[in-house]
């Protein structure tokens, strides 16, 4: 037979579960936001990524 009557302890447990869930969602959002912020901060960095490109090849002197 299913339990149909709600006791005060069910409310407490629901509140606690909701609190934990929101904390976890908040934590995930912060890690995501921080990752985006960190990547943006490093947006001006350029490094070798296995593909030569004009901006990172050394300048070649040409004779006039």
């Amino acid at each position, binding site marked *: *037979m299913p*339990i149909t009557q709600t*006791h005060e*302890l069910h409310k*407490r*447990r629901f*509140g*606690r579960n*909701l*609190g*934990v869930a929101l904390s976890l969602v908040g934590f995930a959002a*912060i890690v995501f*936001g*921080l990752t*985006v*912020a*960190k990547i*943006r*901060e490093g947006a001006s960095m350029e490094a070798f990524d296995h593909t030569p490109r004009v901006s990172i090849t050394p300048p070649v002197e040409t004779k006039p």
Partner: protein
Amino acid sequence: MTDATTNTTIQAAEGEARFGDYIQLLKPRVMSLVVFTAFVGLLVAPVSVSPMVGFTAILFIALGAGASGALNMWYDADIDGVMRRTAKRPVPAGTVSAGEALSLGLWLSAISVAMLGLATNWYAAGLLAFTIFFYAVVYTIWLKRLTPQNIVIGGAAGAFPPMVGWVAATGSVSLEAILMFGLIFMWTPPHFWALALFMKSDYHEAKVPMLTVTHGRAETRRQILIYTILLVPVALGLGFTAVAGPVYLAAAIVLNAIFLKGAWDIWRRAEALAEADAYVVEKRFFRFSLYYLFLHFGALLADAGLRSWGMA
């Protein structure tokens, strides 16, 4: 079968914690002061920090402070249960077990230190770890029950947040950070001893060696004056560094004059007179001490605002 299980569960759950009880373990009122001072420390630093990194840093500094609060409640449950002010805390009230408080404190310490390190730098994270260690081990476990100077030592833990905020932004400690630390460190003893003067019975019953119990009330009044005199040059000295400006200097002169006058009045008062008027001067001094700290850091923030608008 189901009936028996339900009844047992209901009985066992009478003392079950709400989510709010776990929040109470983190001492939210202390955390609000930590958030404010760490925010000022981070904002007045001469380095621009991205809002998301700054927000994360403040959040995890506050969480680290909360973690040390939980560790404090785990260890101090016996004396918390005796004192009227702390008897309703979750562990002595029986809603959260001491083991849960310890576990929450340790996990939140690890998470906050790791996240602060990832968000800013490992120097700031190390300083936060040291702050938690200092409050939980050096103050709570070791010295709180051993020496009447416990408040002075505990004050150091509360003084670290603006320094952690500063280091999170700059990556190093400087004179400004040390003076912000000094401001809270020197302010704590007069603030708490004033409270101890009019909340006298509590500490005595808990057998915590509060200065009022071990050295008497006249000596406590003298110590309040001594620490206030030592506080003044630190507060004014901060006014001559790069983080302060005209607002801070003006505020510091006025606030320290009032604070010094209050400490002088407390020192001059006889205990019988204080008892007769229900500690009106001590209560006023304690209330003012809260504004004192808030306004000093608020003034630093105002000067930082003026600088960013090119007005100072």
